[in-house]
């Protein structure tokens, strides 16, 4: 009997325990405590509590999925999982009130227990248990909802969370504009106001429901169109989307202020470098962990050629120096590439790692100090447009934003053209099987060297812009972490996928920058994301193969329905 029950409910209990461990981790790592100061919805819920609420909801949802089949059992499963999670938090409070956990775990403070029991101390032990059960049941209920209702519910919660987190970025510019009344109504000093939260929820849920009811006929009409018309429609839709996107991007620095535009410029810089490494690693399959070397070469070239301070040698304008920087970076690509072309796989990564470190250490060394300034770096690099058109409206803090975006767009265009060219195909063939490629007449040395050089050129351009953006360069900016970041953004975005580079850069560079207020935990987020990605979506967020399938959707639509229907039946 017990064995049978365990067989049926064991998975749910395990999920509950897992949820409890996550909740305990959130508490003991200090996330709950630190973010209890930051409101998500003013006066109603803090971000710290939100984390715990989310833990409860998600535990309930997953627990419901693992519950045995049967009427109402999934809700029961959710409740059970939530109850176990709550019990574990209760245990924490109980133990914490008897034993001094603080000696080992800094964050196990009375403040935390007050947060967990709503300031009732040991008398409030029931609070986490009850809340855990309620939230778990709610999670189970969300799971039980039919898909038409479940999706709006989840999206509504996600929108609350997203807007609550980003409220500051929306509020500040609105306050300076003519919308200050609306801004005060919707957003508190941090997070949403209760009214704002309600409006968000109504808008999102209502919008999704209306979409679900309104769209099927529209979708059917589109599906009924003959192929060429449908393709044209899709093309028009993509065009309009791009145009709107471009407008938003152009207006962004005026709408959201200099901080956001700095972040976007940084993302664009990483997109540049990501597109460069995407050629060497994504297309040609050559893992380069010393990519920052080419970035450094580009930055130092521009620095030396344009600086008006101590180490400047030419005082050129930025624009004359940039092509030079790109060419020099390309030459370095060839120089570094030649000796290591014969190395395959993992060994290549180590060799390139060495190159990256050599450049960083040389730049900061006493040996080259008379030329590169050593740790003091090169200062007074002029801004790109100030020198060209002083006083022009384009000059000013936003110039790098536009310049970086322009360069990223240009480089993306070049990358797309390269990908679709004979060279791009050859790179991919070398990545897949270089022996076979060689037997088909591919000159491996030439092909790999070109991949190195073009990747290096993109990184050099990134470095040149970086010099213009910061206005000074130091050896300490050329850290290994830059290379790791670029590799990571390729992995997150999807190896070899050009849109993936953009998504990866936004995700790994942009979001952490925007979350500066949670600076202590940025790298926790970074690490957790990478692990989750590798477990769940090792191919990346926007893998190129998916895009390929998307493009050829017409050809495949006929065949698979039987398969997918069968798959759905077994999974649900």
């Amino acid at each position: 009997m017990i064995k049978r029950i365990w067989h049926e409910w064991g998975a749910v209990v395990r999920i509950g325990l897992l949820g409890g461990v996550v909740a305990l981790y959130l508490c003991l790592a200090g996330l709950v405590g630190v973010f209890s100061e930051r409101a998500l919805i003013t006066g109603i819920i803090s971000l710290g509590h939100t984390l715990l609420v989310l833990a409860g909801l998600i535990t309930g949802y997953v627990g419901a999925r693992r519950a045995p089949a049967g009427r109402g059992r999934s809700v029961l499963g959710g409740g059970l999982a939530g109850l176990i999670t709550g019990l574990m938090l209760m245990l924490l409070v109980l133990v914490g009130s008897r034993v001094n956990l603080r000696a080992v775990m800094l964050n196990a403070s009375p403040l935390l227990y007050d947060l967990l029991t709503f300031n009732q101390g040991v008398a409030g032990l029931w609070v986490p248990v009850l809340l855990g059960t309620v939230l778990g049941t709610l999670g189970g209920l969300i799971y039980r909802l039919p898909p038409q209702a479940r999706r709006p519910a989840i999206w509504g919660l996600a929108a609350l969370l997203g807007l609550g987190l980003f409220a500051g970025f929306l509020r500040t510019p609105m306050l300076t504009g003519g919308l200050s009344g609306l801004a005060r109504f919707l957003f508190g000093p941090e997070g949403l106001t209760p009214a704002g939260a309600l409006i968000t929820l109504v808008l999102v849920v209502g919008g999704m429901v209306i979409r679900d009811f309104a769209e099927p006929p529209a979708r059917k009409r589109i599906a009924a169109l003959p192929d060429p018309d449908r393709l044209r429609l899709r093309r028009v839709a993509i065009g309009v989307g791009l145009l709107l996107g471009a407008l938003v991007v152009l207006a962004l620095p005026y709408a959201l202020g200099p901080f956001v535009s700095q972040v976007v410029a940084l993302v664009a810089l990483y997109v540049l470098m990501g597109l460069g490494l995407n050629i060497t690693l994504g297309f040609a399959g050559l893992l380069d962990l010393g990519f920052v070397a080419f970035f450094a070469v580009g930055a130092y070239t521009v620095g030396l050629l344009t600086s008006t301070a101590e180490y400047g040698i030419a005082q050129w304008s930025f624009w004359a120096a940039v092509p030079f920087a790109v060419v020099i970076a390309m030459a370095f690509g060839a120089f570094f590439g030649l000796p290591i072309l014969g190395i395959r796989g993992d060994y290549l990564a180590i060799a390139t790692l060495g190159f990256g470190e050599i450049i960083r250490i040389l730049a900061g060394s006493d040996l080259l100090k008379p030329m590169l300034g050593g740790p003091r770096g090169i200062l007074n690099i002029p801004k790109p447009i100030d020198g060209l058109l002083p006083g022009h409206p384009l000059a000013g803090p936003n110039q790098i934003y536009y310049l970086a975006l322009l360069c990223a767009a240009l480089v993306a265009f070049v990358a797309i053209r390269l990908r679709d060219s004979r060279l791009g195909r050859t790179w991919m063939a070398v990545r897949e099987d270089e022996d076979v490629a060689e037997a088909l007449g591919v000159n491996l040395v030439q092909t790999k060297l070109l991949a190195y050089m073009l990747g290096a050129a993109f990184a050099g351009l990134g470095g040149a812009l970086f010099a213009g953006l910061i206005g000074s360069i130091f050896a300490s900016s050329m850290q290994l972490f830059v290379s790791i970041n670029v590799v990571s953004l390729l992995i997150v975005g999807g190896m070899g996928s050009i849109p993936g580079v953009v998504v990866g850069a936004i995700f790994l560079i942009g979001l952490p920058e925007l979350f500066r207020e949670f600076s202590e935990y940025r790298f926790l987020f970074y690490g957790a994301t990478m692990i989750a990605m590798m477990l769940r979506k090792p191919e990346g967020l926007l893998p190129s193969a998916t895009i390929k399938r998307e493009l050829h959707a017409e050809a495949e639509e006929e065949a698979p329905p039987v398969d997918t229907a069968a798959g759905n039946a077994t999974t649900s």
Partner: protein
Amino acid sequence: MPILIARQVTKRFGGLVAVSGLDFEIETNAIVSVIGPNGAGKTTFFNCITGFNHTDEGDILFNSTPIHHLRPDKIAHLGISRTYQNIRLFATMTALENILVGQHSHLRSSWMGAVLGVRPTREEEDRAHEEARRLLRFVGLRGKGDVLAHNLPYGDQRRLEIARALANKPKLLLLDEPTAGMNPAETEEMMNFIRRLRDELGITILLIEHQMRLVMGISERITVLDYGEKIAEGTPREIQTNPKVIEAYLGRGGAAEASGRVNPPSVSAMPAPSSAG
């Protein structure tokens, strides 16, 4: 005139002599097979011709040009293509892209032209795509150009590999076990297809094969290798009755038994080894 001549070719891997003093010729426009038990050195010989391995001794001449010290890509440029025993397609590229890579030797456009989108490059790409589609049709893969290579069924992958080799416009095509894993009907089809390659495209064909039905049915001449050495050469009929060949395949006892009969067991009845070394 022979299109390919190998003289005293020897290839060693450490102490192992994979190919030893091999003399070999193949006439232009012929279909010739190399057979032999597992580990006889057949694939090593192929690798020597295509430049994967460099010979330790001996010369290989292709249309009177020595090729035994050239890199594989140079040899491909001269007009030698091959397929592989275990299919080696570019798995995550589409069928069409696989063939386009095969055309590499015949495309001239530079990456600069591709970035700038100049007209000669675009025209060359269009022609290459046209040619690739024609090859797809030729090998019977019409309409499968956009399928990723690893999603194709096994037989189609074999044919795609041949199409990719054909894209190089070879004068000499080396097929390493083209019918491995095929049933009799598919083998029959492949046999006819190989004949078409020779008859319609005028390609000289050198085969490694284990399915004796195919070897005996299609080859004009057969070379038998055993332990890296050539033990016999001749027409299918001569090979079928050659005692040395029977010994190599069946062992000494089998050969003795065979020699006692009027009508010896033909090689076509020999068990095909499951895989080659």
